[in-house]
């Protein structure tokens, strides 16, 4: 959670492009702290008196142009760097996180952390930090995206707003650009570094009685198809006008990739070997057993360029490409080093690090099929198309039953075609059961939901999807 928070909050100020156009003096062109994260890591390691020390330094630039009611209404840029230090003293582990990276502040933070570790009970069976390991780099960095200006974002957004006005609909969304650098080093000689850029676009289009949505991400702003997403969201909103009502019940549904991401996200904690060992996962006793339908294969692969994130975990272990589920059979779990030692298997590079431990897949590849979305619809006599979901929450985190609402484009399918928009519907489904009812899939593509992280997901045609009520 801390890492995520700091990834979200991080970002450097300025940048030559921004400052130059602003006409500010050259003396202000340097970002707030020009020390490379790797050097910050080394500096902190050098200052630590703990038995073992791990340092991660995060630094990001992040700028968001947000719009609603066909106007830009929030427009921000943020900058921050932070260091997260794990300190081990006589087998006890304490963590400190600070964005005050001057030497006096770092010394003070380290002193407090070492003292806290000294006063705690040792972690049973404490595992020393790992030494150097080979980490295969992944390239997802684009200078133009990191340096994207507010004028560039405003220009792109203005085209979307003009399209919305032209279609007599209302647009709300965001265009975000930024970069993240992560450096990790420990006192046993391990070093790792990753940097990447991000460009995200999200759009909700509202008409009087309907809405449409599209969202996409890329590491290059130039690869973000803002125009295409704008057209799709507008088309959905227009097509969904004058929505009808479908009675609650079980339907065959076509889930677009974002909707699949919204549901499969709830599966991911269950792959943690520690959770299985603590009997808090639905995969207890299921390794090597069929858990989903035979057409479901799920991998984790950080090296696919369409993914995001560092190729190492919170302990500095290289992320391995894993086949979690193959042809419906549970093949492997994700393991941090402590759990790996207990189970006799190797760490997979998905751990959060001591003392919290735990692991989860972070770069899902849900292997798709060959049919395009329209073919999934064409093959259906009666069903429902779902664009994405909203406010999905677990009813039972053990059985992975979840509830939520459809949002921004729910359509009735009749005789292989979309015939009308539908009012939003509430569902209650068990995700494992749903994945035993997959009839057909499109090829996987990059997708994320409003609340679910990005991965590679196909559209799915699924039978017996359980709707329990309607939005008024």
């Amino acid at each position, binding site marked *: 959670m801390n890492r995520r928070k700091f990834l979200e909050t991080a970002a450097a100020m300025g940048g030559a492009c921004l400052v130059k156009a602003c006409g500010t003096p050259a003396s202000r062109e340097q970002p707030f702290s020009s020390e490379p994260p790797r050097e910050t890591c080394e500096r902190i390691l050098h200052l630590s008196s703990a038995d073992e020390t791990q340092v991660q330094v995060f630094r990001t630039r992040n700028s968001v142009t947000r719009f609603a009611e066909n106007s830009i209404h929030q427009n921000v840029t943020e900058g921050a760097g932070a260091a997260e230090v794990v300190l081990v003293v006589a087998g006890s582990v304490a963590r400190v996180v600070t964005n005050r990276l001057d030497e006096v502040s770092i010394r003070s933070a380290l002193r407090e952390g070492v003292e806290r570790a000294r006063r705690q009970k040792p972690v049973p069976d404490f595992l020393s930090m790992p030494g150097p390991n080979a980490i295969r780099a992944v390239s997802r960095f684009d200078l133009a995206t990191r340096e994207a200006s507010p004028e560039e974002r405003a220009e792109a957004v203005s085209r979307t707003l003009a399209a919305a006005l032209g279609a007599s609909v209302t647009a709300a969304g965001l265009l975000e650009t930024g970069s993240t650098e992560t450096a990790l080093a420990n006192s046993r000689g391990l070093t790792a570094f990753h940097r990447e850029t991000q460009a995200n676009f999200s759009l909700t289009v509202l008409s009087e009685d309907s809405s449409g949505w599209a969202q996409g991400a890329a590491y290059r702003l130039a690869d973000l198809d803002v125009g295409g997403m704008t057209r799709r969201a507008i088309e959905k909103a227009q097509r969904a006008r004058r929505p009808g009502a479908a009675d609650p019940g079980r339907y065959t549904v076509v889930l677009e990739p974002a909707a699949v991401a919204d549901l499969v996200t709830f599966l991911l904690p269950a792959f943690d070997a520690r959770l299985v060992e603590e009997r808090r996962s639905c995969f207890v006793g299921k390794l090597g057993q069929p858990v989903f339908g035979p057409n479901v294969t799920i991998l984790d692969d950080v090296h696919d360029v369409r993914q995001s994130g560092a190729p190492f975990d919170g302990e500095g272990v290289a992320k391995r490409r894993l086949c979690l589920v193959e042809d419906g059979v549970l093949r492997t779990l994700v393991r941090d080093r402590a759990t790996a030692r207990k189970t006799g298997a190797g760490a997979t590079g998905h751990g959060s690090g001591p003392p919290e431990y735990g692991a989860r897949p972070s770069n899902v590849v849900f292997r798709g099929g060959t049919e395009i979305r329209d073919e999934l619809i064409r093959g259906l006599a009666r069903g429902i198309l779902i664009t994405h979901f909203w406010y999905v929450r677990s009813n039972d985190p053990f059985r992975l039953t979840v509830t939520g609402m459809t949002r921004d484009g729910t359509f009735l399918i009749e005789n292989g075609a979309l015939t009308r928009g539908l009012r939003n519907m509430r569902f209650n489904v068990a995700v494992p059961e749903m994945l035993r009812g997959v009839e057909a899939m499109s090829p996987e593509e990059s997708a994320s939901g*409003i609340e679910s992280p990005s991965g590679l997901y196909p559209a799915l045609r699924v039978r017996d999807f359980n709707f329990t009520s309607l939005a008024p």
Partner: protein
Amino acid sequence: MKDLVERAVTIARSLGASYSDSRGVLQTWQTLAVQNGEIRRSVNEESLGLGIRVLVGGAWGFAATDDLSPDSVESAVHQAVRIARAGASVPGRRAELAPEEKHLADWTSPCRRDPFKVPLEEKLDLMFAVDRALRGVKGVTSSRVDLGFRRSESTFASSVGSLITQRRTQTGAGFTVGAYSDGEYQTRSYPTLFGGQWSLRGYELVNSLDLLGNAVPRAEESVALLSAAPCPSGEMDIILEGSHLGLVVHESVGHATELDRALGTEANYAGTTWATTERLGRLQYGSDLMNVVADARPEHGDSPGCFAFDDEGVPARRIDIVKEGMLAGYMSSRETARRLGLPRSGGCMRATSWNRLPLVRMTQVSLLPGEWELEDLIADTRDGILMATTKSWSIDDKRLNLQFGCEIGWRIKNGKRAGLVRNPTHAGITPRFWGSMDAVCNRKHWALWGIPHCSKGHPRQAIGVGHGAAPARFRKVAVGVAGP
């Protein structure tokens, strides 16, 4: 910090900003967790920085930096102005602000025992004692005890001339215990979910909760739930205990009456609302027993939603949200209040940190107490379920179709508790649900529940809020709705 934030505002004015404000914030946290007999979290964090918000040509710009050197702060102001100008270059709505007076203030939240000065050993001794008590109950398979402490010191300056310093200390404490058997896993949390109770108090909160005294009863409940009857399906009267009802207020009333949502500015993420502005004063939200206020003042309580001034320099206020069942008001900012024609802001603009833009956020949004004693209410219920401690929560993007689950229920038959209910759930449509409320318990049963992380905006901001509620009864509500 005062010099820096005032300087930032001065520079913004010189660059043409019609309005600006700046916040310098130092935040410190400590979070501790003991899980299954081990320390699983021991973290101290700190974050220091400054944000500057400017209005140029009717468009907003915001920039933030963690480098507090004069050059860096000046650079941040230039960036904020540049961003605002880029926004102003695109046709669209222009921001105007409701009037606000200049305020000079220095406020510190009450904190009798500084949690950051309590010896670590005292904290861990309590946590391990609670953990041992939980795991000492036969059938328990997992346990987790959490303590959390947060302090923020915020210095705010605005071009109105305000200069406000606020120091807020928050404490959170609680535990969750789990039992697994034969493919069934059940949990109980105390005092509630979300890491327990959170208050704008010091370590005195921890001592007041009696975590140790409540450990064994909750652990026994988690084990007993494994063999409890499943929640029946159908329509039934339900009584919701206060901490759970507080979250129902949060989802179905609090978010629905944030004025920015009502105006459409959160449509892409959190959604809009059914409580649209043209219905103000005319919309029947619930039964005439329903009275909801948004009250950030310390007089209302000491949850994480309490403060003296919001993050655009408006004093904490009490606003009627629902009065005798009718929609009576919204939570607002200076900009949104102006759009609705209100004389001034509701004082609800808050940011999670120095690097976040203030947004309209819930404060302390509470259902006011009624007249009933809880035992009288149970005795008055012929056939129903008493539900406690939130386990699941979901509502649509207009805040109408809601579904909640609880950790535990007790069947009520002929006015008496008649056994445990496993996985109780209830669902409904907001005005019908609140319209079915026919009894609210009195102040003796009313408590203010702190929630440490309510998410909104992009970049997402998770902020602390509070909800006061006493147990209340709802007639003929759909229950047992979650079974696939």
